[in-house]
C-alpha cells in the first residue's frame, strides 16, 4: 500500500520489480534453457535419435579424448596461429594509426572497418579462389611464369589461420587502439626528449604500457578463434582438416546424426571459451597502469618523416589483402564460366549472376536475412535498452545476475548455441522449428552481449542527475524512461541498431542448424552453394550478398545520421 508520508516510491518500485522479474525470466529462458538441453544431450549414450535421451553417461566426453584428439589439436594450432597473426596485425595497425602521423589517418581508420563487413565466409571463399592449390590465381600465375608446383596452398592449417587472422585483425585493431588512445602521449614524448629513438620508445614505453590491453585483446581473439566456423568450413574440409566446430557440424549432418558427440564437443568448447573470457574480464577490470592526467590529452602523433609513406603502404597492404584482392578475385571468378586468372583463357559470362538471382533461395534468403535484421534490431534494441537500464541504473537486487545472463551467450560459440537451440526446440512441443521465428529468437539471444555492451557504454555517460531530476519532479519510472532516458540514449540506440542489423545479416553459425525450407538465410545459403555449386556461382552469390548488405548499410547509416542530426 502506498504510504503518503514516504511519497510515491513504493508503487514505482513495484512496477520496476515486476518488469525486472519478467525480464529475468525471459532472458533466463532464452539463454540458459538451450544450454540445459545441450548438457542433457551430451550425456546421451544411447540411441542418438531418441528425444529425450534415455541412456546417460559420459562416454561422449571420453570419446573426445580417444577419437577426436586430432581435431582438438587442429583447433588449438589454428587458433594459436591465427591469434598471433591477428594481434600482430592489430597492434601494428593500431600503432600506426594512433601514434604516428601517417597520411590520411582518418580515411584509413574508416577503411579498417571494411574487413568486418566482408565477413570471414566471403573472405575464405575469396582466398580459396586466390590461393587454392593448382587452380588458385597465385598458382596459375606462378605456372604461367614457368614455375612448377604450387607456391601457395590455402587448404592448410596456416591458410585457415591466415584468413581468420585477416578478418579478426580488425577486432584486435579496435581493442588495441582504444587502449593506445587512452595513454598519455607525454609518456612517449618524454622518452624521446630523453633521447630515445622512436623504436626504443615503442619498445620500452609504448609496448609495456599497452601490454594489458594487448593481452586482453589476445584472450578475446583467441576465444573467438576457437569458436570460428566459416573459414574452417570452407578451407578446412578440402584439406581434410577438421576443427571442433566443423566436426560438430559434420556429426550432425550424417546419418545417423551423432548429436550426443556433437553436444559434448560443443560444451567442451564452451567451457574453454568461458574460462578464457572470464580471465579477459578480470584483466579488464584490474585496468591498465593508472596514469595521472590533469587535463584531457590531445594525442599527438609522432613525426615519421619519409617513413610515414612506408607506414601508409603497410595499412594499404592490409586493406588490399583483406578487402581489395578478395573482392577482385570473387568478381573475376563470378564473371567467368570456368575460373581462371589467365585472362587470355577466360570465358566471360554473366550467366552466374543470372542463375544466382534466379535461384529462389538466393532472393528469399536475402530477403529473409534483411527482414530478420530489421525485426531483431528494432525489437531488440528496445528490450536491450531496458536491460541496460536495469543493470546499470536501477537499484534492484537481481541486476548482477541479469548482467551475467545477458553476457553469457558471448562465451558460447554461435554454432554450439545454434545446436543447443535446435536441441531445445526439438524437445519443446511448440512448432516454431524451421520457421523464421526460431531464427529471430536465436539471433536476438546471440546478439544480446553485443547490443547490451554498446548501449551500456552510452548509458554510463548519462549523468544520473538528469534522471533523478525527473523523478524528483514526480515522474513515474516508466514516464522517466520514456521522456528522459530513452531520448538521451538515442545515439547509442542507433549505433546498437546498426550493429545488430549487420550482425544478423552476416550470421552463419546459429542459423546453420535452424533453417527450414521457407526460412533460409543468406550466409548458410552461400555455404550450401559452395558445397553444391561451382565456385563461379558461389562467388556471384557472395558478391550479391556483400553488395546488398553494404547498400542496406549505407542507406541505414544516412537515415541514422539524419536522425542524430536532429538531436544536435
Amino acid at each position, binding site marked *: 500500500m502506498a504510504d503518503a508520508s514516504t511519497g510515491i516510491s513504493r508503487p514505482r518500485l513495484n512496477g520496476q520489480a515486476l518488469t525486472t522479474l519478467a525480464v529475468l525470466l525471459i532472458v533466463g529462458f532464452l539463454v540458459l534453457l538451450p544450454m540445459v538441453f545441450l548438457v542433457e544431450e551430451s550425456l546421451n549414450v544411447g540411441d542418438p535419435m531418441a528425444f529425450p535421451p534415455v541412456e546417460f553417461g559420459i562416454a561422449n566426453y571420453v570419446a573426445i579424448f580417444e577419437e577426436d584428439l586430432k581435431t582438438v589439436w587442429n583447433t588449438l594450432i589454428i587458433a594459436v596461429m591465427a591469434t598471433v597473426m591477428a594481434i600482430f596485425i592489430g597492434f601494428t595497425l593500431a600503432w600506426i594509426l594512433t601514434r604516428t602521423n601517417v597520411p590520411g589517418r582518418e580515411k584509413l581508420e574508416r577503411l579498417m572497418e571494411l574487413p568486418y563487413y566482408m565477413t570471414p565466409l566471403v573472405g575464405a571463399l575469396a582466398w580459396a579462389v586466390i590461393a587454392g592449390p593448382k587452380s588458385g590465381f597465385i598458382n596459375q600465375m606462378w605456372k604461367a611464369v614457368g614455375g612448377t608446383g604450387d607456391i601457395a596452398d590455402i587448404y592448410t592449417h596456416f591458410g585457415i589461420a591466415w584468413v581468420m587472422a585477416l578478418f579478426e585483425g580488425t577486432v584486435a585493431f579496435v581493442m588495441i587502439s582504444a587502449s593506445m588512445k587512452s595513454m598519455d602521449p607525454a*609518456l612517449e614524448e*618524454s622518452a624521446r*626528449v630523453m633521447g630515445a629513438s622512436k623504436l626504443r620508445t615503442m619498445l620500452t614505453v609504448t609496448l609495456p604500457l599497452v601490454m594489458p590491453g594487448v593481452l586482453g585483446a589476445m584472450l578475446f581473439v583467441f576465444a573467438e578463434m576457437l569458436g570460428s566456423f566459416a573459414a574452417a568450413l570452407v578451407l578446412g574440409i578440402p584439406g581434410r582438416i577438421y576443427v571442433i566446430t566443423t566436426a560438430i557440424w559434420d556429426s550432425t549432418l550424417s546419418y545417423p546424426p551423432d548429436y550426443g558427440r556433437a553436444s559434448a564437443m560443443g560444451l567442451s568448447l564452451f567451457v574453454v571459451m568461458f574460462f578464457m573470457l572470464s580471465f579477459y574480464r578480470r584483466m579488464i577490470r584490474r585496468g591498465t597502469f593508472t596514469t595521472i592526467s590533469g587535463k584531457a590529452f590531445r594525442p599527438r602523433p609522432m613525426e615519421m618523416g619519409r617513413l610515414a609513406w612506408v607506414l601508409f603502404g603497410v595499412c594499404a597492404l592490409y586493406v588490399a589483402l583483406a578487402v581489395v584482392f578478395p573482392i577482385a578475385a570473387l568478381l573475376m571468378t563470378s564473371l567467368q564460366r570456368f575460373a581462371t586468372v589467365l585472362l587470355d583463357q577466360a570465358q566471360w559470362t554473366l550467366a552466374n549472376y543470372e542463375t544466382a538471382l534466379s535461384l529462389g533461395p538466393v532472393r528469399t534468403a536475402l530477403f529473409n536475412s534483411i527482414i530478420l535484421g530489421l525485426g531483431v534490431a528494432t525489437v531488440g534494441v528496445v528490450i536491450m535498452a531496458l536491460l541496460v537500464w536495469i543493470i546499470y541504473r536501477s537499484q534492484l537486487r537481481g541486476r548482477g545476475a541479469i548482467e551475467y545472463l545477458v553476457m553469457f551467450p558471448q562465451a558460447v560459440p554461435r554454432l554450439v548455441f545454434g545446436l543447443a537451440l535446435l536441441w531445445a526446440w526439438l524437445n519443446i512441443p511448440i512448432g516454431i522449428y524451421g520457421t523464421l521465428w526460431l531464427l529471430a529468437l536465436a539471433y536476438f539471444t546471440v546478439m544480446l552481449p553485443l547490443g547490451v555492451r554498446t548501449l551500456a557504454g552510452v548509458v554510463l555517460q548519462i549523468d544520473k542527475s538528469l534522471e533523478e531530476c525527473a523523478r524528483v519532479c514526480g515522474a513515474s519510472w516508466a514516464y522517466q524512461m520514456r521522456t528522459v532516458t530513452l531520448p538521451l540514449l538515442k545515439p547509442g540506440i542507433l549505433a546498437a541498431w546498426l550493429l545488430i542489423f549487420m550482425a544478423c545479416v552476416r550470421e552463419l553459425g546459429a542459423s546453420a542448424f535452424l533453417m527450414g525450407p521457407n526460412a533460409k538465410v543468406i550466409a548458410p545459403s552461400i555455404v550450401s552453394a559452395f558445397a553444391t555449386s561451382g565456385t563461379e556461382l558461389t562467388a556471384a552469390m557472395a558478391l550479391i550478398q556483400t553488395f546488398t548488405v553494404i547498400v542496406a548499410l549505407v542507406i541505414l547509416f544516412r537515415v541514422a545520421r539524419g536522425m542524430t542530426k536532429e538531436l544536435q
Partner: protein
Amino acid sequence: MSETRIEVKDLVVRYGDQVAVNGVSFTVGRGEHLTLLGPSGCGKTTTLRAIAGLEHPSSGKISLEGHAVYDAATRTNVQTEQRGVSMVFQSYAIWPHMSVFDNVAYGLRVRKQGQHEIKANVERALDLVQMRHLADRGASKLSGGQQQRVALARAIAFSPTVVLFDEPLSNLDAKLRAEMRVELRELQRRLGITSVYVTHDQEEALAISDRVIVMNVGVIEQIGTPEEIYNKPRSRFVADFVGSANLIKGKPAGDGTFVTEGGTVLKVMAPHMPHGRETEVAVRTAYIGLEPLAGENHVPGKVRQRLFHGDFVQYVVDSPVGAMIVRRPPTNLLPEGADVTLSFSPEHCVLLEA
C-alpha cells in the same frame, strides 16, 4: 662559445586553419631562466614544444647553441631525440611500469653510460630533489608531489644544458606550489641550467624568472625582466594580466601629462615614445597610497568597499577618475564611506601603448 643557448626566430605554428604561434622571436642566454607567460591558448606551450621538436612549425627558425634544429628555409628539422634538450611535462609523464630509479636512469641508459656512472648520476639527481629514499619504489605508487620531483630528477640526471618546463607545478596545491617554486629556482641556479619555463601563473613567473615573455593569442606582448614587466607594462593586456592594475581612460596632453575623461590632469610616465593616440594609463593597485604625498598625483575619493584579504586589505574607492582599487598593508583599516586622497607617483602611472 656564444652566450646564446637558444634562438627562436619568426616562429609560426599552425593547426589546420588555426594559427597557434604567430611569428614569435626571442633568445635565451646561457644559464638564463626565461618564462613564457600567458593565458591558455596563447601559444606558450606550443612554442616550448616546438623547441623540443614535439611540434612541427610552419615557418621560422629555431637554433640551439648556434646550430639550427629547425629551419623552414633549408627544410631542416632535427628529430626530438637528437636535440639534446630535456623536458619536464605538465602531467609529469612518469612511466608507471618502471621504478623511480629506472625512470631517472632512462636518459642515461639511452646515452649508454656504464652501470656505475648511471647509479652515481641517478643518486645525485634524486638527492637534489630529496627522493633518494624512494629509488626502488614503483613509480605508479607515488603521490603527485613525489612524481613531480622524480620528473625533475629525471630531467636533470644526464646533465643537460637546456631544460624545458611545461607548467610543471600547475597540478600541485597552492602551498606545495609555492615551496616547489623556490626549490626549482635553487636547483636551476646551482646547476647553471638554461631553462625555458611555461606557466599561466603570473606570480610564479615574476618570482623565479630572469626574464619574462608575456604572450597572447600567439604573439609576444612584452619581453622584459619581472620588474620591467610589472612596473612598465606596455599594453593593456600586460597591465591586466600581470599583477593587478587600475586602468584609467583619457588622452595624453603632452609634456608628460594625461587628461582623464573626467577632466583630471595626471602626471604620467611613458616607457615608449608617445604619439598621441594612446588612451589609457595603468596604475598598480599596490602603488596607490591613501595619504597625499608630495610630488605625486592626488585624487580625492570615498571608500565604497573594503575586503580583508589577510596579507593585504583591498579598498574600492570612488573618485573622479573612476572606481579605483587600492591594496594596502592590512593595518589601520579605514571604514567604508571614509573620505581619502589617493596618491600615486607619476612613475607608477604608466601610459599604455595604443
